[in-house]
């Protein structure tokens, strides 16, 4: 089932790229959506088949040898956390492919790269082998490089190159760490389950070096300050739909990896470093929020809020791993919260970036100074933006609140000072989103925007889909929380 979910978009990508040369924009996107429905349905089916009360961390496991002499295999399976992020992956990709975009006469290639990227993303979240994890980690870079460079804005080539080089450096740092982890097993293996059970570096002198290599690799991807500088450039130049995928799915690879590798496989070393990781998280939270507040460019502002929001996730993981025993309930809550926050951020920021795409289609302008008073002109677009913004700033009843609340409650129990400072980030985020809404929709309406058309039916559908889930998770989060908690409670022990 999981393998099919990885393969269908991959084969779909090849098929669309080869067969779709003469397809119109609409046909290519429709076929693309048709393909993305399959992994979406399969993830839902996996969700249904998943046994939340099982004592086994990983379920639905498949295994095939790949490089047996080096202990590398094709191993896939899910725990509650993987299931949650795979779910948001399937949803965001479907919405991003469906959402209108300028495909520059090569719609089939545009759709093919999205499908390729979906395959890589799902593969990464399902991977139970470190090398397989790395394979998909790298493939996501290739896909995003081509999406940004070919369908991005003016300076896209440079931004895409910077993105690829910077994150490739991160992924190779991760690779060295992964190899060290695999070599520490006897016999050598990259099977995640075996490594989680063995905790091979617990007593090793070079464990901290390995941890730093892995953290740098994942930190660049997440990104956390000071490794975030590729992010604004990539987001600003990327087409909005690619930004939605980048923020909604690809950034999760960093934090998901943080849970999978350092947190689960190097508990003792991670616990030693947890306070430092927490401090980096808090810096990201505050820095991301403050810099976002200072941006006059709509897309850049939303891009920086991702630094802030991913900071919460990192803080939650740091809190969950800060001690080896004790405070199980609080640490479990922080880890569950981190997972829920990943899902919420994926949906909310995905929606926000799709909205920037809709605005760009209408005006070709991201400068907030050129906007104002649009509330009455485009009520649906305004309504969707307001809903997504409130969700992003953490209004209770919407998805953003659930994860952040759990993270902070959990963190207060183990790292109270950091939690206290981190809370300031929420205040700044509220200010930056309210000011954003005010500059877009209130005040005086510039003349040239008076005839701006509202959301078309396709845009309405994609945004409604994402935002409905945002509300659903806000109002009835149990289905998500219970699934994430199934993994969290096993991982924190006790």
């Amino acid at each position, binding site marked *: 089932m999981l393998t099919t979910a990885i393969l269908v978009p991959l084969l779909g990508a090849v098929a669309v790229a080869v067969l779709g040369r003469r397809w119109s924009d609409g046909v290519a996107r429709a076929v693309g959506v048709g393909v993305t429905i399959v992994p979406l349905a399969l993830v839902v089916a996996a969700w249904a088949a998943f046994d939340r009360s099982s004592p086994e961390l990983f379920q639905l496991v498949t295994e095939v040898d790949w490089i047996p002499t080096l202990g*590398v295999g094709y191993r896939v399976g899910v725990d509650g956390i993987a299931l949650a992020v795979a779910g948001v992956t399937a949803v965001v990709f479907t919405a991003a492919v469906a959402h209108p975009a300028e495909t520059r006469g090569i719609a089939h290639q545009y759709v093919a790269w999205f499908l390729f990227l979906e395959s890589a993303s799902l593969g990464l979240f399902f991977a139970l082998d470190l090398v397989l994890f790395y394979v998909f980690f790298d493939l996501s870079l290739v896909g995003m490089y081509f999406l940004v460079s070919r369908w991005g804005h003016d300076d896209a080539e440079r931004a895409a190159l910077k993105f690829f080089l910077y994150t490739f450096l991160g992924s190779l740092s991760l690779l060295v760490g992964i190899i060290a982890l695999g070599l520490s097993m006897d016999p050598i293996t990259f099977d995640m389950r075996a490594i989680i059970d063995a905790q091979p570096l617990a007593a090793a002198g070079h464990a901290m070096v390995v941890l730093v290599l892995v953290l740098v690799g994942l930190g660049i991807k997440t990104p956390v300050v000071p490794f975030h500088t590729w992010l604004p450039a990539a987001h600003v130049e990327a087409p909005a739909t690619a930004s939605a995928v980048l923020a909604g799915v690809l950034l999760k690879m960093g934090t998901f990896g943080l849970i999978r590798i350092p947190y689960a496989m190097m508990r003792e070393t991670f616990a030693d470093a947890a306070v430092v990781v927490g401090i980096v998280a808090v810096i990201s939270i505050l820095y991301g929020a403050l810099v976002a507040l200072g941006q006059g460019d709509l897309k850049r502002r939303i891009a920086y809020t991702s630094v802030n929001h991913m900071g919460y996730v990192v803080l939650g993981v740091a809190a969950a791993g800060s001690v080896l025993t004790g405070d199980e309930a609080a640490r479990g809550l922080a880890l569950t919260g981190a997972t829920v926050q990943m899902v919420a951020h994926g949906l909310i920021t995905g929606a926000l970036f799709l909205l920037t795409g809709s605005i760009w289609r209408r005006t070709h302008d991201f400068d907030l100074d050129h906007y104002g008073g649009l509330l009455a002109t485009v009520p649906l677009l305004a309504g969707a933006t307001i809903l997504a913004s409130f969700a992003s700033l953490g209004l209770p009843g919407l998805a953003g609140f659930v994860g952040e609340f759990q993270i902070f409650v959990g963190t207060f129990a183990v790292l109270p000072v950091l939690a206290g400072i981190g809370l300031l980030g929420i205040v700044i985020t509220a200010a930056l989103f309210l000011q954003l809404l005010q500059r877009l929709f209130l005040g005086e309406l510039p003349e040239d925007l008076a005839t701006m058309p509202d959301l078309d039916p396709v845009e309405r559908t994609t945004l409604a889909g994402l935002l409905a889930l945002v509300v659903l998770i806000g109002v009835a989060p149990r289905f998500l929380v219970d699934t994430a908690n199934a993994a969290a409670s096993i991982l924190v022990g006790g």
Partner: protein
Amino acid sequence: MTMSMQLSHLAPQIAVLLGAAATLLVAMFAPRDRQWLNAPVALVAIAVAAGLQVGLLGGVPVLAFDGLWALDAVTNVASLAILAATALVVPLVPRWLAPDARHGEYYPMLLLGALGAMVMAAATDLNELVVGVVLSSVTGYVLAAWHRRSAWSVEAGMKYFLVGGLANLVLLVGVTLAFAAAGSTWYPALASRLDGVDPWLLVPATAMLVVGLAFKAGAVPTHSWVPDVAEGAPAPSAAFVTVVPKIGGLVALARLLAVVPPDSSGWRVVVATVAVLTMTIGNLAALGQDDVRRLLGWSSVSQAGYALVAVAAVGASDRALPALLLFLVVYAVANIAAFAVVTALRGRTSLADYAGVARRQPGLAVALIVAMLSLVGIPPLAGFAGKFAVFTAGIDAGLTWLVVAAVVNTVVSLAYYLRVVAAMVLRPSPHDVHRLGPWSSTAVGVATVLLVVLGLLAGAVLEVASGPLAG
């Protein structure tokens, strides 16, 4: 130690030699418009040799022919890699050399060059190693300077020859010093007698052997011929000499160093230093290139640097030799794929001329992108498996700093490969792009498929390449 004189142990090499003789006859007697017949003749000879070599797989490692010829997993895989690489180069030749009156004579040169590399890879005696090196070098000079009327080609051949003459001299001095130190040129004798030899003799002897073989590998300090040959030599020759001698030279180096004591000779430090310099100089020089063939030449230098990481790990990690072989196999396919695309594009060389190739010739563009991403080591392409195995061997051998250097270099290399990708994909093309007939496109297709398949079958290659050295 098992000794043997069975002719079957040399059967693949004999098949290649007979193939060379056969192609020479065809070249002499076939009319000018039938000279291309040598391509199928050469392919048949290679296929027979490969079949015979496959038949030797899995045997007990032996030293054959008075102990001069190692028949083990390393010889088997290296020979098969050399044969496969040669087989991929052959289809590039017929259309490229169709206007050339001496067309048919090119094939015996290719086959003898392959034979020289095979001798290097299996030699267990320094004198025999020199025979292999010289056979490979002499044919290489001819292949590089094939276009007698092209100043570029002649310059490439000249430079190759001058650097080669110097490097072969250094190698010979190294052999002499090694003989002085051990009283023998036979590897098993070196293994037992070099311990305790005066470092003032052993260190220069080892260093000179390393430098002499670095020439074949296209590594620092005898690397300067590589970009010139890549740019100026006929594209099929460039594909051949940046790959086949490299396989022979690096395998020979690994086999030789395995019998030299690492501590008293200091070879591990020497090889590691050469590795870092090679990958760094190759990459930095490639960064600024506006000529794709030159860029591929420098990239081939840097790739030798990564391979040397595995050589530096020989003896310190059991994974080093299999990793080296896997890396060389996947490098060979990727590099030949890239030069095959250049050939299929009729040798176009300026980066600016690659604009819009993706739109005009999507198949060739995809092949070049796949080849370059494989050279970077992007999974799941074959190049990833090669680098992964090399990095693992390096860390396993305690050479983590060297692996970190390779990692940083890998990131740098991505930048210049992407320049070619960006030119093909992102820029519009002012002109139609023509290709050079179906032969070279077939080679492109086969090599590209291999890059994907070898990535998935890397485990099998490592399995075959694992096994003790003979002797």
